[in-house]
């Protein structure tokens, strides 16, 4: 298949359609507007439906209804809009409905800025809404990976009956790179016999619901959900590692920031430093083993984020005090430069090469 040059946000739309998504409900917010714009242009041609909702709250509840009716469905937004969707995401997780949610993160808190940021890590990986739930959170670092994760995200959503979040940022949404669309399914997907499609007079009614008024029933439901999250932790950890055995220091970063870290590593290597990288691709489940397997000679781990430090909590939990951890982050839409990272590494290692 030939590659085409596409902007990240438009590639999300094309990937969703390639994956069989035929329903999209969204609301405008920068820097992800090219996703709903693409879907409004292309989805109907593929026999699908695009609805511009009156709000992010309405959009995510339309996703609930469509998913509960058996459809492959997606919504997208950026940080403040994703905050608004949390009510619906919690209901979707509670009712065990599959869908793909794209968050092209921008600066915060509040209205923040429209520049790229990574301040939604907690919101995404901890289950941003009420109650005990998690969802699969996948963080692409380039447009091809964005396409691949959106396509696989639909399969994972159907397989686990769970929302899947694609966590990008304004930079990955706006950049153009060559991509191709591969749609082979890796999972045997279950039949959606739970969906509301009308009984046809042939079976008892299907009910899509997250309400359990009896405490013991709700606890049992939670135990079932926790087993599902444990299965995700067992099977869905994804990570890219580089030179984590022999390095003096290991950088760790996800998404856009990991690319800047790679540039910093090249610069440092030219100066004789040995620096490794751990790039989590799945943020939930977090690939903790990659940190546990770091070589004994590694003196420190430096976490780089476009936030004041969120993923570093998971890095610390994974390292469990084994190695000193450091943090370097920029916020508000400021993007760290490779030079800043190089300086921070030199500061940590001192003269140690």
């Amino acid at each position, binding site marked *: 298949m030939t590659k085409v040059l596409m902007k990240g946000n438009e590639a999300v739309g094309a990937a969703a359609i390639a994956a069989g998504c035929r329903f999209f409900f969204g609301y405008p917010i920068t820097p992800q507007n090219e996703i709903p714009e693409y879907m409004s242009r292309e989805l109907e041609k593929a026999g699908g439906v695009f609805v511009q909702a009156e709000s992010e709250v309405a959009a995510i509840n339309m996703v*609930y*209804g*469509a998913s509960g009716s058996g459809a492959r469905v997606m919504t997208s937004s950026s940080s403040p809009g994703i905050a608004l969707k949390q009510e619906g995401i919690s209901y979707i997780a509670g*009712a065990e409905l599959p869908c793909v949610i794209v968050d092209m993160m921008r600066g915060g808190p509040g209205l923040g800025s429209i520049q790229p940021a990574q301040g939604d890590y907690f919101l995404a990986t901890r289950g941003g809404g009420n109650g005990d739930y998690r969802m699969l959170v996948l963080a692409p670092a380039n447009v091809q990976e964005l396409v691949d994760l959106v396509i696989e995200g639909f399969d994972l959503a159907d397989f686990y009956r769970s929302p899947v979040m694609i966590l990008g940022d304004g930079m990955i949404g706006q950049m153009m790179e060559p991509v191709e669309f591969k749609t082979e399914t890796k999972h045997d997907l279950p039949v959606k016999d739970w969906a509301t499609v009308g*009984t046809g007079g042939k079976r008892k009614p299907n009910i899509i619901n997250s309400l359990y008024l009896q405490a013991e029933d709700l606890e049992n439901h939670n135990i079932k959900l926790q087993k599902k999250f444990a299965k995700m932790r067992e099977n869905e950890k994804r990570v890219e590692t580089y030179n984590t055995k022999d390095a003096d220091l290991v950088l760790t970063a996800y998404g856009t920031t990991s690319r800047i870290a790679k540039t910093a590593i090249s610069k440092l290597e030219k100066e004789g430093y040995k620096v490794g990288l751990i790039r989590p691709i799945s943020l939930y489940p977090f690939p903790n083993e990659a940190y546990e397997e770091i070589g004994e000679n590694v003196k420190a781990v430096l976490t780089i984020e476009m936030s004041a430090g969120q993923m570093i909590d998971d890095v610390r939990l994974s390292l469990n005090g084994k190695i000193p951890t450091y943090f370097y982050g920029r916020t508000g839409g400021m993007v760290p430069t490779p030079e800043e990272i190089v300086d921070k590494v030199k500061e940590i290692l001192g003269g140690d090469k």
Partner: protein
Amino acid sequence: MAIVFEKTKGLTDKPTHYCPGCTHGIIHRLVAEAMVELGVLDNAIGVAPVGCSVLAYDYFNCDMQQAAHGRAPAVATGIKRVHPDNFVFTYQGDGDLASIGTAEIVHVAHRGEKFSTIFVNNAIYGMTGGQMAPTTLIGQKATTSPYGRDEATTGKPIRMSEMLATIDGAAFVERVAVNTPANIRKAKKAILECFKVQLEGRGFGIVEVLSTCPTNWGITPVEAMKWLENNMIPYYPLGNFKKPGEVE
């Protein structure tokens, strides 16, 4: 012996949790009967709200989804867009539809979504224990208007049907009551007409049903029927606000 009346197949056999004298039971029956009479029960998908009728998903004998508070119209939009040939309805109370869900109900009317809404207005929050609703009457006592609703600080009761009737995409809007046998018959007729508007693909339809809440009004069921007639109907006039013209 000939059967002159039997329970509709549109309802399950599950006993309802509604208080004695509550009119949700009557309204459930009317909705269920209408679905059976129109032959749509087997392809119906309903949406239950948050509020007293949250458990409607256990009572209607068709596929159901339970929606977040006020969001039933958005959920129904998702359902109907996936299954345009299914019969889709929401069943919502006045806290759900006239307060937290105003944006959702206004915009399904605005988009002319082709489903039907049953809006049960009892002028109070029932499930949470009798708090003031946007529909609570001036002077009416509620647990959050203990001295009676004060217009100066809380405004006047909101008339949803009149407001929705101003929106082009709302094809059918009617307000009915279930306080007398005659009114119950009229309510049934309005629900049937509203559902037909959906089946004909003519736009969004809503029937507002004035209902009682003896428990939270603090009066007997019989007194509640009278209170509805003497206080609610004068402020919330019954009748059709909008219906599609004859088919050309």
